[in-house]
């Protein structure tokens, strides 16, 4: 508590200089694995609602408008940025961005709403993934096998038109 010790203390503090970060002017980086606001990528989302089932704050709401259209609504107001939705998403459509500058004066600004078309099978009504071109070659949709000649016809395009794709076969439609 002597004067000398207090002066030493003041000198020690002054040696550190000024450590204040000039924050709003320059932004410091965020660490590598920082979990900020989740971003929903609608082009990858298949609408499985795994994120909605996993969210601890029940932040993601799911609504099926009809057989084919599903609305996923992320409210944003209660989100604790825990990252469970991103962990569970099978298509990696949710990324926890490194964005933390989310202050706003209207809480609805944080919401993200996706309206997705769920690809449903035309015959059985279940959802499926859009096939690639190679898979389409083997698609068993409408079948046009040749019953008269007992031949199996593979079609790369399912056309109900009259011209046969294969020259030697005449197709009869009823």
């Amino acid at each position: 508590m002597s004067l000398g010790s207090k002066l030493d203390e003041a000198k020690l503090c002054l040696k550190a200089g000024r450590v204040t970060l000039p924050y709003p002017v320059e932004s410091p980086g965020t660490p590598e694995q920082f979990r900020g606001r989740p971003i929903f990528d609608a082009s990858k989302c298949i609408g499985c609602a795994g994120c909605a089932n996993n969210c601890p704050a029940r932040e993601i709401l799911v609504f099926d408008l009809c057989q084919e259209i599903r609305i996923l609504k992320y409210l944003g107001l209660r989100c604790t940025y825990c990252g469970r939705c991103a962990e569970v998403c099978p298509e990696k459509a949710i990324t926890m961005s490194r964005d933390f500058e989310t202050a706003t004066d209207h809480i609805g600004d944080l919401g993200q709403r996706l309206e997705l078309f769920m690809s449903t099978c035309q015959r059985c009504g279940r959802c499926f993934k859009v096939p690639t071109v190679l898979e389409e070659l083997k698609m068993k949709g409408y079948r046009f096998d040749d019953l008269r000649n007992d031949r199996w016809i593979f079609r790369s395009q399912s056309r109900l038109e009259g011209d046969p794709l294969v020259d030697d076969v005449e197709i009869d439609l009823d």
Partner: protein
Amino acid sequence: MLKNFCQKMFGRSLWVYHANSGGCNGCDIEVLNALTPYYDAERFGIKLVGSPRHADVMLCQGPAMRSTASALKRAYEAMPAPKLVFAIGSCACGGGMWFDCYPVIGPVEKIIPVNYYIPGCPPRPEAIIYGVAVALGLVDKKVAPVEFKELELPIPRYHPDELRGQGELVIYEKAEKV
């Protein structure tokens, strides 16, 4: 004229009162961090005061609980106008993870009107300072609502209107989409 001048000074010196109505103290610690030398909030003129009567801004954290709701309302009414309320953390913004628990009434805005929301769990001290800067008008806010609608259906649907009869054949109109 003096009144105008005084009101312009409002943004240069904000006195802050900190009210925790039932939170976990995570956001308390981040608010305290914002006052430390590293993220110094005092350079904007912000000072922490101990009485709501001296304060301009109330920093609320924690959801509004049944037991502290009346105390929060009284602290809000004790503040002299003009006043602002900032809701810090996801518990104050929307109820957090506990929005449907038995002691929780909901977000703070069910009890007192909130002017600015700073979500996060807990928000970084930089996020809190960013929120204050948005309130002071120094920076613009960065978030906006996002909506996505799929307008083009990728799989064709054989709608009966699009099938045209031609004698014995049936022709599908939009064949190129198949």
